[in-house]
């Protein structure tokens, strides 16, 4: 997995609440058996018309947001299905950080597995960043994971929380399975004990 350390980039504003996984990546694109290549279909139904032409006023189609690396979004981002295609599409587009007042649980977890940092902030701070994002390329935002700080374009510093273990994995690009395998003896022991207690499992 790619490391996430510090990011300085354009943020795209998507103030809509309850942006669900079907909006992020419609199901027609779930038929792939690969992880890559989904970026062109990110937000597909909002981004293209039926004939495949770009809808000009959709945020990521505007020239100033084409290279956005941060998304500032409305409440409850990523609700809906468990499809990891959602973070795959976001990452493949080039977005590495999503900021909102809240995220759906599974989506939130899936982000970390794919080198994306989801950040939860209180409403006023998201509003502040949303304003920044609306200024496009003129207002780059800095996200520093090590320091757990976001710096707005005019130099305001907003601290954020992140789970220590997830931070460690993201900073170092660590693969979960490899880490878990180090505890294989604990899993063996648990399995033996469970087998004795609940043999029907």
């Amino acid at each position, binding site marked *: 997995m790619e490391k996430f350390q510090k990011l300085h980039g354009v943020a795209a504003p998507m103030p809509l609440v309850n942006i669900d996984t*079907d909006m992020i990546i419609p199901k027609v694109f779930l*038929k792939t058996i690969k*992880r890559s290549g989904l970026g062109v279909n990110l937000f597909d*139904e909002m981004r293209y018309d*039926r004939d495949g032409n770009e809808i000009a006023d959709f945020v990521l189609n505007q020239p100033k947001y084409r290279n956005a690396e941060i998304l500032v979004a409305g409440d409850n981002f990523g609700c809906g299905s468990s499809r990891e295609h959602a973070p795959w599409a976001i990452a493949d587009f080039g977005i590495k950080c999503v900021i909102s007042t809240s995220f759906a649980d599974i989506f939130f977890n899936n982000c970390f597995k794919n080198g994306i940092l989801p950040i939860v902030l209180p409403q006023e701070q998201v509003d502040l960043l949303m304003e920044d994002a609306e200024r496009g390329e003129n207002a780059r935002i800095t996200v520093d994971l090590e320091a757990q700080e976001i710096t707005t374009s005019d130099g305001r510093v907003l601290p954020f929380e992140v789970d220590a273990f997830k931070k460690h994995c993201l900073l170092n690009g660590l693969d979960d399975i490899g880490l878990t395998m180090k505890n294989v003896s604990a899993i063996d022991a648990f399995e033996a004990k469970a087998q004795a207690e609940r043999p*029907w499992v």
Partner: protein
Amino acid sequence: MSPKTLYDKIWDAHVAHESEDGTCLLYIDRHLVHEVTSPQAFEGLRMAGRSVRAPDKTIAVPDHNVPTTLDRAKGIDNEESRIQVDALDTNAKEFGINYYPVSDVRQGIVHIVGPEQGWTLPGMTVVCGDSHTATHGAFGALAHGIGTSEVEHVLATQTLIQKKSKNMKVEITGKLKPGVTPKDVTLAIIGATGTAGGTGYVIEYCGDVIRDMSMEGRMTVCNMAIEGGARAGLIAPDETTFEYVKGRPHAPKAGQFEQAVEYWKTFYTDEGAEFDKVVTLRGEDIQPVVTWGTSPEDVLPITATVPSPEDFTGGKVEAARRALDYMGLTPGQKLTDIEIDTVFIGSCTNGRIEDLRAVAEVVKGKKIKDGMRAMIVPGSGLVRAQAEEEGLADIFKEAGFEWRLAGCSMCLAMNPDQLAPEERCASTSNRNFEGRQGYKGRTHLVSPGMAAAAALTGKLTDVRELM
């Protein structure tokens, strides 16, 4: 010992390892797999030279992509769908996991097959790369959806890296009125809490209304816990649960069964255990409901009128405006005046035998409206067989319904069962998101009885008027 919730107890019984910061390795008893969210996980195993740690605890079934038309033995036309189903076939064989192929009568929607075959048992941990894994919580099993990276992690290690969620209690007191079903209950809960109301929590559903429900009804309630944002929904196991489980192919056999029941009976919330959040609804207050918008929280009693964006506050104003535009509805319009083109009855929410019985009760001896497209897609091949045996299938066919083979079908329309743009559907599924049932398709979520009523009248209809 301090009192524990049901969730606390299942959690504690499955922690295989805990780090200093509270991150746990949670042991997984059952891992269900379907074709859409697993190919990349198996590929990952292959690339790393890993095997499936517990193939006997891993169960795979294709459901999302499979055609449900009667001629499906001829194969899948859509190439990408076929590749996904073929990939599951190959992976199941290569890694030696339990498998129900399309040709097997036991095939069906993964969340219907698991309980039906007795894979899902009380006190277990159950995961699947699918958010509606919450369904299995009806058995008092901690069950939730995971992403594909986590699918790979469970395949390789039989554990998940987890932090504990908070405890939430949703109590439904009293009794339901006639015509009000578990689907109305679960939608009413989401209407009350919002789609983010359960975020960060595991919900325990309790109260007399839940106690009085069958296992099928409880599965319908837990199925939509995810639509309320919760990681999982749980119902404490009781005699109804044990009775349902008994004798199923993978349930504990005689002798061991009694031992298992003794163990399962320890899974309940202790007197005095603390919940971080409590929501209480009166069963008598719940009415037959329908969704008007594009989020499952957009729910109203069938007797209501379409709301206006100004009825909301904050970000929801814009979301409601967008939803009304998408759904082609006008504020103030009566919900019962909304005309329907298609009726879909099925899905892991309402594709079980009781749901089909409820439909039959409404449509028996009647005909669906002229020009109506109405399909019934049983949740599994066994549900289909049972419905045929009970004579329900004949009632459906005589009424004019298409009687399909098992699969997810128009719940998410990955197979050919899709809505055309602006086509309007009364659906017993669980999501009314934009495009969910087809590009620009319009979905109204309802109970099986209400879907049946809409098929007869051609409009959203209060099922109580047909009873």
